[in-house]
C-alpha cells in the first residue's frame, strides 16, 4: 500500500511527488500515458511568468510570483534549462496605458519585483525589432523561460531516485474507498493508497468526480503554436506579450531556452480532451497576431507547429486542497497558466496539506540533486574530448541539426524512467527537434531504441499506445 498516490505525471504531479519524497512516505505516481510530461506539460508557452496577470485574491495571484522565485534554486538542483530573460507586455494604444499601469499595480500587490513601465524609446533600445506601433510596455525583469518537459523529466527522475514509484500506461478507471483506504483501479491493477493527489490536468474533473459530490468541470482550452528555426531565435531577447484579452494573454513571441523562436497561443475551448490537432485558421491567426508585436517574424523559418490543452476550470482559478466530502483526496486541479510558473509553489502548498494530514517523518536521505544528460552541443572542445575518451558513443552524432550524440541517446534510454519512444528520446535529448524535424535521425533513433530495449524496430512507437512507426517487413505487411 502507498501512503500517497499522485494521479498525473505532468509538471504538477511530478513537482508534488518530488516534494513528498522529502518525507518518509511511500509515493506512487500514475499516468495513463507511456511517459512523463505527455499532456499539457509538453506543449505550452514554456514561460515562467513574473506574476502580474492574476488578481491578488486568487490562488493564481498568490502562487505565481512565489513559484517564480523558487525557480533559480530548482533549476540548479535539477539541472534543467531556465533563463530569467525578462518579459514585456506591449501596449499599442495611448488609451490603454492606464491598463498597463493597473497591471503594474496588480503585480506589485502580488509581490512581483522590479516591474517598470517603459516608454517607446526605451523599449526600442531593449528590443529593436519590436513593432513601431507600440506606445509603451510593462517590463518585468523576473520573467523567465524554461524547458517544461525537461523540467518535468528532471522532477520525475529525482523523485524516482528518491523512492517514488512511477506507473505508466495506467489510466484510472475507478476509485473506491474501503474504510480509510482508497483503491484505485487502473488498466492494469488495483492500487491501494491512504491519500490521493489529483494532478490529472485536463482529466482532473473526472478524477475528482469519481470521489466527490463537489463536482468540478475542466474545459480543455487549446492553444496552438509555431516554432521557428534557431536562425530566427534572436529576433527578440525577451518574452513579448500583448496586453491581455478576456480569452488569455494574447499572442506571445519569445525565444526558447534552446534558442528557437516560439509564437502562440490562441485559445479555443473544446469538448475533446485529446484534441491536440492544429488548424489552418488557428495557425494563420497566431502568425497574424504575432506580427503585431514583431512585424518581421520570418514565417518561412517555421519548423513545426503544435498545440496543447490548458486545463481551464469554471472557477477560473486553481483548485488546490482537500475536497470537503472526501477526506485524504487532495486536488491540484484547474492548473492552467500560470501553472508552470506556480508549480514549485503549488507543490509546497500541497506538501503543507499532506504534512498536516499524515504528519510524516522527514527523509534525511533525500537527495535534491539530479544531473541531466550531458549535452554535447553545449560543451567546449576540451569537455568533448574528455567525454569521448570515456565513451566513444559521444563522438557519434546522430541528430545533425541539434548535434545530439549516440551517447546522449543511450543515456536517455538507460537512466531512471528512461525513454522508451521516439518522442521520449526527443524530449530528453532534443534529437529530432531541429530544422529537419527528424528526417535524417528518426531511422537511426529507432535502431538505437530497438537495440537498447532489446525489441524489434517494429515495436518502437512515437509516443506509446498504437503510435507504431513501422508496420512490417518489406513485402510482408
Amino acid at each position, binding site marked *: 500500500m502507498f501512503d500517497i498516490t499522485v494521479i498525473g505525471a505532468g509538471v504538477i504531479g511530478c513537482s508534488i511527488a518530488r516534494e513528498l519524497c522529502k518525507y518518509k512516505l511511500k509515493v506512487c505516481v500514475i499516468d495513463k500515458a507511456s511517459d512523463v510530461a505527455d499532456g499539457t506539460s509538453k506543449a505550452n508557452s514554456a514561460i515562467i511568468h513574473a506574476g502580474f496577470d492574476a488578481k491578488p485574491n486568487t490562488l493564481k495571484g498568490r502562487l505565481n510570483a512565489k513559484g517564480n522565485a523558487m525557480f533559480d534554486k530548482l533549476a540548479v538542483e535539477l539541472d534543467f534549462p531556465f533563463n530569467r530573460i525578462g518579459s514585456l507586455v506591449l501596449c499599442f494604444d495611448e488609451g490603454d496605458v492606464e491598463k498597463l499601469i493597473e497591471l503594474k499595480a496588480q503585480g506589485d500587490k502580488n509581490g512581483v519585483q522590479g516591474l517598470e513601465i517603459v516608454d517607446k524609446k526605451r523599449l526600442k533600445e531593449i528590443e529593436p525589432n519590436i513593432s513601431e506601433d507600440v506606445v509603451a510596455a510593462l517590463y518585468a525583469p523576473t520573467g523567465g523561460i524554461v524547458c517544461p518537459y525537461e523540467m518535468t523529466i528532471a522532477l520525475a527522475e529525482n523523485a524516482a531516485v528518491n523512492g517514488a514509484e512511477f506507473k505508466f500506461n495506467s489510466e484510472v478507471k475507478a476509485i473506491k474507498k474501503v474504510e480509510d483506504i482508497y483503491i484505485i483501479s487502473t488498466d492494469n491493477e488495483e492500487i491501494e493508497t491512504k491519500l490521493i493527489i489529483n494532478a490529472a490536468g485536463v482529466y482532473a474533473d473526472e478524477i475528482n468526480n469519481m470521489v466527490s459530490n463537489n463536482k468540478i468541470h475542466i474545459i480543455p482550452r487549446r492553444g496552438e503554436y509555431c516554432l521557428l528555426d534557431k536562425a530566427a531565435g534572436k529576433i527578440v531577447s525577451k518574452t513579448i506579450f500583448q496586453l491581455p484579452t478576456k480569452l488569455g494573454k494574447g499572442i506571445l513571441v519569445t525565444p526558447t531556452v534552446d534558442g528557437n523562436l516560439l509564437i502562440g497561443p490562441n485559445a479555443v475551448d473544446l469538448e475533446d480532451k485529446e484534441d491536440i490537432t492544429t488548424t489552418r485558421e*488557428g*495557425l494563420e491567426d497566431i502568425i497574424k497576431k504575432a506580427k503585431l508585436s514583431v512585424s518581421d517574424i520570418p514565417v518561412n523559418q517555421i519548423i513545426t507547429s503544435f498545440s496543447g490543452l490548458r486545463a481551464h476550470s469554471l472557477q477560473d482559478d486553481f483548485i488546490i486542497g482537500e475536497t470537503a466530502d472526501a477526506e485524504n483526496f487532495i486536488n491540484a486541479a484547474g492548473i492552467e497558466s500560470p501553472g508552470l510558473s506556480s508549480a514549485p509553489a503549488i507543490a509546497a502548498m500541497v506538501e503543507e496539506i499532506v504534512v498536516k494530514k499524515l504528519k510524516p517523518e522527514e527523509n534525511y536521505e533525500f537527495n535534491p540533486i539530479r544531473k541531466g544528460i550531458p549535452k554535447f552541443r553545449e560543451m567546449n572542445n576540451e569537455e568533448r574530448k574528455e567525454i569521448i575518451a570515456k565513451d566513444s558513443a559521444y*563522438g557519434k552524432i546522430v541528430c545533425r541539426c541539434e548535434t545530439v550524440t549516440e551517447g546522449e541517446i543511450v543515456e536517455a534510454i538507460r537512466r531512471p524512467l528512461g525513454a522508451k519512444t521516439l518522442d521520449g528520446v526527443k524530449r530528453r535529448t532534443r534529437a529530432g527537434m531541429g530544422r529537419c524535424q527528424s*528526417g535524417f535521425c528518426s531511422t537511426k533513433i529507432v535502431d538505437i531504441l530497438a537495440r537498447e530495449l532489446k525489441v524489434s524496430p517494429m515495436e518502437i512507437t*512515437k*509516443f506509446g499506445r498504437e503510435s507504431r*512507426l513501422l508496420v512490417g517487413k*518489406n513485402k510482408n505487411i
Partner: protein
Amino acid sequence: MQQYDLVIIGGGPAGLAAAISAKDSGIDNILILERDDSLGGILNQCIHNGFGLHTFKEELTGPEYAQKFIDMVEEKRITYKLKTMVLSLTKDKIITAVNGEDGILEIKAKAVILAMGCRERPRGAINIPGSRCAGIYTAGAAQKFVNIDGYMPGKEVVILGSGDIGLIMARRMTLEGAKVKAVVEVMPYSGGLKRNIVQCLDDFCIPLKLSHTVIDVKGKDRVEGVVIAMVDENRRPIEGTEEYITCDTLLLSVGLVPENELSRNAEISLSPVTGGPMVNESMQTNMEGVFACGNVLHVHDLVDYVTLESYNAGINAAKYIKGKEFKENKIEIMAVEGVRYTVPKYVNPENIDKSIDVRFRVGDVYKDKYISVYFDENREIHSKKRVLAPGEMETVKLTKAMFEKYDGCKTITIKVEGE
C-alpha cells in the same frame, strides 16, 4: 593540428567527384570527411535505376553509381574518415570535426570543398495542420526505412508533393506491397522529372492530383486519413472541394534545401533563392579557397550534373592550392523573367579555359519559349525550348569566344522569352 591541402566536407557524389578531380589535378594531400557509415551519400538508399546515363552512358542504380566513384577514391588512395561530423569551419579554414575514434579533430586546410548535400523540408515548413500522430514521414526517411533497413513505414499511403523522391517512393512502396492512394501536388505541375511521373505513377495507375494539397491530418496515435482539397491560383484551399482519403501514412516530398549551417556560421554568402553559397565560375564561394559543389549549392535533378559540377570544383581547388587566385568577380549573372537563379552567380572570364556551363531552373512551366542570354544589352544566345519545367534543370554553355566578343561586359542576363 593536422594539415591537409584539401578537405572535402561530405563523401556523397559531389565530394567523391571533387576529390577525384583534385587528385587528378595533382593534389595528393586530400581528406574527405563523411558523417555517415559509408561513402556514397544519399545514393546508397536510391536503389532505383536511372543514374549515370550521361556520365557512363548506362543506366545504373544509385549504389552502383556511387560505387564507381568509391572504387576510384580507393584506387587513388584518397584518404577519408567515416562517421565524422564537421562541427565548424572558420575563416582561416580550420575545421573542427568529431568522431568516436579520434574524438575532436582540428584540421587546417589550404582549400575546402563544401559538399554537404541537402535535406528535405519537414512538415512544419509548409505548416500542415492536423494531428501530430505517428505515420508522417519525409519521403527520404521512408526510403531509408524501406531500402536500407527493410521495414515498411505504412500500408496505405498518400504522398504530398511530387518531387522526385516522392515519385520514386510511390513506386517503391507499391512494389513492396503498400497501396499508394494518391500523390498530391499543390502546384499545377509536378516538381519532378517527367520520366519519373511516367515510370513511377502512370505505370502503376497512381493518381497525381495537381493543384491539390493536404489540409488536415486525422488520427490519434497513427494516421487514419488525410483531407485534401483543390487550391486556387494563390495556392489557397477552395472550400467545397475537400476529399477524405483513408490512409495510415503521409509521406512528404515538399522540397529540398541545401544544408548550409556550416557555411552560414562561416559567414559564406548564401543565395536567398537556392539557400546555397553564391559561387563564381570556378565554384569558389565568397570565402577565398572555399569551394562548393553538388546539392549543397543548388538541388540537382540528375546526379550526372552533380558529378560534372564537382569535377570543376576539384580542378579549381587544385589550382588554388597551387597558387592561383580567383579574386575578382567581374561579371554578375542576373536571373530574371522566369529564370529563378543561376550557378555560377559570378564570372571572371580570365578563369575560363574553353567554356562554362551555367545551370539554372525556371519558375513555371513554359511551352515553345526561348532561353535567352544577354551580354549587357546584346542577345548572344536565343535557343528554342519545346518545354521548360521547374522539375528539370537547364544548362547554357558560355564559351571563351563569347566573353572575348563582349570584352568588358558587366552583366549577363538569362531569361525566358516568348520570341
